[in-house]
């Protein structure tokens, strides 16, 4: 019995140590904004541009596809079901509350975590194993400046931009779905615009910001925690992906609780 308790205690201590290390890493990464030297901004800017190209630009197709199909399916079904009880006026509310406010940021973040989060974790873990992180430090370059900050800001910017794309495409695809089920465009748009407020857009972007920060930080932490063993790389990628997805869902739930209250 004592052995079981001791084993549980050890695991718990390791878990707390890891959470503590993650918290310290996040704090240091955010604090690193203040210490980025002037010349370093040029270099980090180039890495940031690459990150935006990879995450935002090259990820747009996936987001358009996801958003278009999801919105078309949801609105098609909803128009048929609500139409049978004469409640098609609720289509606008459904679009704004369910898709723009909740699913837009959530699905965008999940897509980016699956696509770019894994890439970040794998790249930084490889950098670590190949001795590139140590080489950066040996040149007097802070790895947080060169490796983490551009990825963090790139992910935040990308998730926010892609959330706007997701919402825009969803509204357009919703109109197509509504139209194909006999609902006129003016009726559809009047319903959407009557429900959509500035608060919804701000909330959607705020979620994008927070989800983007999670996708920038967690995979970076997991990637850089790999030391020398290449077999650690896939494990770090899995931890990064699962951790990011779990944290995105938890944060989305917290948002619902806060905004609901």
């Amino acid at each position, binding site marked *: 019995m004592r052995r079981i308790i001791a084993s549980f205690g050890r695991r718990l201590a390791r878990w707390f140590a890891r959470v503590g290390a993650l918290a310290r890493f996040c704090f240091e990464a955010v604090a690193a904004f203040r*210490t980025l*030297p*002037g*010349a*370093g901004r*040029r*270099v980090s800017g180039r890495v940031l541009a690459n990150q935006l190209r990879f995450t935002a630009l090259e990820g747009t197709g996936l987001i358009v596809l996801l958003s278009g199909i999801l919105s078309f399916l949801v609105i098609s079904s909803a128009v048929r079901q609500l139409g049978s009880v004469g409640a098609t006026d609720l289509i606008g509310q459904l679009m704004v509350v369910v898709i723009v406010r909740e699913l837009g940021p959530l699905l965008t973040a999940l897509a980016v975590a699956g696509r770019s989060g894994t890439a970040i974790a794998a790249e930084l873990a*490889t*950098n670590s194993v*190949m*001795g*590139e992180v*140590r*080489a*950066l*430090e*040996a*040149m*007097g*370059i*802070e790895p947080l*400046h*060169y490796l983490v900050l551009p990825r963090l800001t790139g992910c935040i910017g990308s998730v926010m931009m892609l959330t706007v794309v997701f919402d825009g495409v969803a509204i357009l695809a919703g109109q197509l779905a509504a139209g194909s089920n006999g609902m006129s465009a003016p009726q559809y748009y009047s319903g959407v615009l009557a429900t959509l407020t500035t608060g919804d857009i701000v909330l959607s972007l705020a979620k994008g910001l927070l989800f983007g920060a999670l996708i920038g930080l967690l995979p970076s932490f997991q990637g850089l925690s790999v030391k020398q063993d290449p077999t650690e790389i896939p494990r770090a990628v899995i931890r990064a992906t699962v951790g990011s997805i779990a944290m995105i869902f938890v944060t989305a739930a917290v948002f619902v609780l806060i905004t609901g209250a």
Partner: protein
Amino acid sequence: MSHPLEFEGVALGRLRRRTLAPFESGEQSGDPGFWLNVPEGQVVVALGDESSGVGTLGSVILGFSLVPIGSCRVFGVDLSTLGRRELLSYRRRIGYLPIGDGLLHNLSLRDNVRLPLRYGSNLHLSEIEERTDRILDLLRLTRFSGLRPADANEEERRRAALGRALAFDPKLLVLEEPFSGMTDRSSAELLYAARGDEGPQRGHRTVFITGQSLPGRLVSDIDREIMVVRGQAIEATT
């Protein structure tokens, strides 16, 4: 008078990784530790097998490892007194060629050479390009400068890594296993570039080389060779 590089009783077997944990220096040990002074402008080579501790010397000089017993001073500064930001700034004054090469694989050889200048200097872009061109020319890398490390051969990668170490024209250069896998002729060229023999002040740089062996052709080009045996320096030739 202080030397560019001074080891005083460093216990190479008891180094610690640098972390933010509290650290107490001044521990005592039974063995005399590693003692060595590297005078200005000299090329000093420390050789030893894997278990000798020679592989940790670069890590001590760069401040990656903390020294619980003894001290390491570079340009008169005790590295254990430096905080993280001071260490990063200090490292820009030291040229370092790590074992392997440590090149960034998503950058070309040219970008690798100019990275420290672009990040850590306030030079104008045209001055950075000019200095990069000069280094690439010195190391006969101009033709291959657009290659990524994965597309370059081992010798080109080593030359590029040395070019990166020379970017700030450091007074002290630390080379780890710089000649492994290289021909005698290439090794001699590398040492020539490392010493700064091409400039107006010929051989102005202090060079500290660690490794397991030295190409025979280079023995006459070095000023001092020591053997590291069980963490202690033993004079080989003078």
